[in-house]
């Protein structure tokens, strides 16, 4: 657990460094994610400690959103003003995104032979 967590935090830190040096507007942890996926696919293996620690954290991923989400209490005014319009945007764009993604995916798997 500890070994894997160390690797994950080290990769996050490396990602933050890369983002800082290159001034890319991409979150450091996302660069760390790309580094880890790239490394595993290139070497053809994922280090076992990373699997153990990663699964442990991801199992309760949604818990990690609570502290930041509670910050919403400071934005009651904006939500009261724009809330309804925001919900309309969310419903429509989520439906459009799912529709387009599924149609594109299906169009390109039909000739792969195992679309079902």
């Amino acid at each position, binding site marked *: 657990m500890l070994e894997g967590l160390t690797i994950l935090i080290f990769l*996050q830190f490396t990602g933050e460094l890369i983002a800082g040096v290159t001034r890319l507007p991409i979150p450091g942890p996302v660069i760390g994610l790309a580094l880890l996926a790239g490394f595993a696919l290139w070497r053809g293996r994922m280090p076992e400690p990373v699997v153990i620690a990663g699964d442990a954290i991801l199992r309760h991923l949604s818990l*990690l*959103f609570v*502290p930041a*989400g509670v910050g919403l209490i400071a934005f009651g005014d904006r939500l009261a003003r724009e809330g309804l319009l925001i919900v309309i945007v969310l419903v429509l764009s989520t439906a459009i995104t799912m529709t387009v993604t599924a149609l594109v995916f299906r169009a390109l798997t039909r000739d792969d032979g195992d679309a079902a």
Partner: protein
Amino acid sequence: MTLRSLDPSAFWIYLAEQPLFFLAITLAAYLVGDRIAAATGRHPLANPVLIAILLVGAALLVSGTSHARYFEGARFVHVLLGPATVALALPIWRNRALIARHWRAIGAALGIGALVGIGSTLVLARLLGLSGATLASLAPKSVTAAIAMGIAEQVGGTPPLTAVLVIATGILGAVMVTPLMNLLRIRDYAARGFAVGIAAHGIGTARALQVNEKAGAYAALGMALNGLVTAILVPLLLFLFR
């Protein structure tokens, strides 16, 4: 300050000075949310995170506690978002055989799905006259909150607002996916799963897993890949859009 009396307000002041108290509150609220979700048979509308946020938020408002004070304790949970984001390489690694087999469909649906997800949000939000800060908070709403909050921070959005918009999007996607796909007559569980993973991240993925194992695998892959792609696309599209 020490605990000298049983006066409720003094008791609260004592508790509110202990960072561990807010850490305990956070975990307890999440467990309550999780119990409620389990009691409803994990219905997407009974989302544990949303319940926990509402419970803790209400407690802070009622007691007049600032988010900064709360966060002194809760940050011990928050700090794990970084390593958790890096760990999203795991679903990509585990589903690499799917990528090798359907790389054209996955690549095209990922690129177009990510573009449409961000683009349709920005266009609709602009049409409805939403403010610029709200636009920047909305743009990454299809990807997991772990990544979306980081993106929002980069582009001048409001991370707490983004977290809640992301959760709302996940709930909407999870509720809409089955009726929408039936309406479109899309029966392939790979396409259905990938679509809900791209549009509605972890909450959509949890829903896909309930329905079908294959849909769940494609959803987890779509969620992780879209986290990467959306992190690159949001700054670009917002720049073009402004």
